[in-house]
């Protein structure tokens, strides 16, 4: 057994143990399992949200893009920051609605706001379909990291299956609280790893950032400004992609749902204010990718740049440390993703469509079982259809971002109607799918998902306006037809 392997196994098992321990004294109800009993303070919320944002993508995708595409990778630093600004205004309102109506999930929100169970089912299905590639991405990233870091001692397949079982175990027992506590381990490991490598690698090869960037600018002119090494990711693409992903980020069902776990709206605001500092590690990850381009040009797979340069630069035990950080970094978001996907599937699809009388206890039981089912589906995809990392994520983003008009208009514009949201959502999802799968992304230089989002919002507004004027003549003096709840206004 090599040292790297021991370090990885220790970190992974330790994390799982902490996750299991976190839920030990909790009496499990759906409320405790999915939203942590709505009792998380600023520290747990921060760790949890950082845990969701910092995924294996941070390690591999951001450095991979810096390596193979150059400046377009900067969108990653931008979109997170936009997302926090959006969350500052939108999330506290979502939280208030959640508190008032006892909401657990994103489809719950749509049902409460628009009074339509079938809209809830629709939203839940889009959510689950978007989550699966995201989950797959985590599993694949984990397999890759562990295989490289252990020098092939653990192959990717067994690594994925093993961590999948451990993650299922602590999600099953501890729910969201388990994930939040594992996030503590994850954050410490990841920041340490990224800090050491991000400052270290440019210094070791070039004596510092400045010399590294000057060398890069000489050898690859154009790499550090848009469109970098690409032909289709120019400034307009970066702008539209940053907007799409920035607006879409909190529309991920798992991130949206995590908002309900905060103990107050104020907690969420304060969290939004400190989150942007968390973008600094991403800058360091870029540095690693850029240095790798100079030191190890010509890698076939850019996503390997981070791991390859660490392997070349540092002793083996350190590789094990990076591997353990990478593995736990995949496990936390995987846990939250699978938790919310299974709740969506049982509460918002199964109960809403087939068994309206099912009790909360029964839903909790089924959700816990569905954890295994969803993990297995993602596992199957990860082993059978591996894909380039970032592309997967972008497809998921195109899907969930389409919830944005329904949520934000629903919160702040009284007139938003069910018909408008259904029409907008359908138009957005269909358009995004058509553009992406027919190879029209980017479309006229813009991110296809962004085009779809703009159409979606426009349709939602126009249809709502039309529905409203018809509704007025039909029932005079009544409240706006679908607006069941007025926390939303």
């Amino acid at each position, binding site marked *: 057994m090599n040292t790297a392997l021991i370090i990885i196994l220790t970190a992974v098992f330790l994390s799982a143990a902490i996750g299991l321990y976190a839920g030990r004294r909790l009496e499990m109800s759906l409320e405790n399992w999915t939203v942590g009993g709505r009792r998380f303070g600023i520290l747990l919320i921060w760790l949890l949200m950082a845990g969701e944002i910092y995924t294996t993508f941070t390690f591999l995708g951001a450095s991979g893009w810096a390596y193979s595409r150059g400046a377009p990778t900067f969108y990653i630093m931008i979109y997170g920051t936009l997302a926090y600004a959006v969350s500052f205004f939108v999330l506290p309102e979502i939280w208030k609605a959640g508190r008032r109506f006892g909401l657990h999930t994103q489809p719950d929100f749509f049902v409460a706001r628009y009074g339509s169970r079938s809209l809830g089912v629709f939203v839940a299905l889009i959510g689950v379909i978007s989550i699966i590639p995201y989950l797959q991405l985590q599993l694949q990233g984990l397999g890759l990291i562990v295989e490289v870091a252990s020098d092939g001692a653990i192959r990717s397949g067994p690594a994925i299956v093993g961590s999948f079982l451990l993650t299922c175990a602590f999600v099953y027992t501890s729910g969201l609280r388990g994930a939040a506590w594992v996030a503590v381990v994850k954050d410490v490991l990841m920041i340490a790893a990224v800090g050491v490598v991000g400052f270290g690698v440019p210094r070791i090869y070039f004596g510092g950032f400045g010399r590294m*960037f000057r060398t890069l600018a000489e050898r690859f002119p154009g790499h550090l400004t848009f469109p970098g090494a690409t032909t289709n990711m120019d400034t307009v693409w970066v702008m539209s992609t940053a907007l799409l992903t920035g607006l879409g980020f909190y529309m991920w069902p798992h991130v949206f749902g995590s908002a309900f776990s905060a103990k107050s709206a104020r907690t969420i605001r304060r969290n939004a204010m400190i989150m942007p500092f968390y973008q600094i590690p991403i800058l360091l990850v870029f540095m690693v990718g850029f240095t790798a381009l100079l030191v190890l040009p010509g890698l076939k797979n850019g996503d390997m740049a981070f791991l390859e340069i660490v392997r070349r630069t540092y002793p083996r035990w350190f590789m094990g440390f990076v591997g353990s950080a990478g593995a736990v970094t995949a496990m936390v978001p995987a846990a939250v993703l699978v938790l919310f996907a299974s709740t969506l599937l049982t509460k918002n699809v199964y109960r809403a469509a087939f068994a309206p009388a099912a009790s909360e206890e029964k839903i909790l039981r089924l959700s816990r079982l569905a954890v295994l089912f969803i993990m297995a589906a993602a596992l199957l995809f990860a082993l059978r259809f591996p894909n380039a990392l970032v592309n997967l994520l972008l497809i998921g983003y195109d899907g969930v971002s389409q919830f944005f008009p329904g949520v934000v208009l629903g919160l702040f514009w009284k007139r938003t109607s069910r018909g408008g949201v259904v029409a907008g959502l359908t138009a957005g999802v269909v358009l995004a799918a058509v553009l992406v799968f027919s190879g029209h992304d980017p479309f006229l230089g813009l991110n296809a998902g962004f085009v779809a989002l703009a159409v979606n919002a426009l349709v939602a507004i126009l249809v709502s306006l039309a529905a409203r004027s018809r509704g007025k003549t039909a029932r005079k003096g009544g409240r706006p037809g679908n607006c069941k709840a007025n926390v939303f206004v």
Partner: protein
Amino acid sequence: MSKGTARALLFGSIPFLTLVFCLPFVNRLRPMILGLPFLLFWILFWVLMTPLALFGADRALRKPGDSQEEKE
């Protein structure tokens, strides 16, 4: 919309203005600042200013009592 809300939204729009709508004007390599290419420096700078902007937004929202009204 109350005056506080409007001010808060103004603060909140700072990252959007600087990190999205200014990008066409800052897409350049030089001058390098603190060793960073200009584009990257610009992005980093405004990312780090965002907490300050949100702090301003928070102050604006909190001034008229602790509850803010969100009217159409």
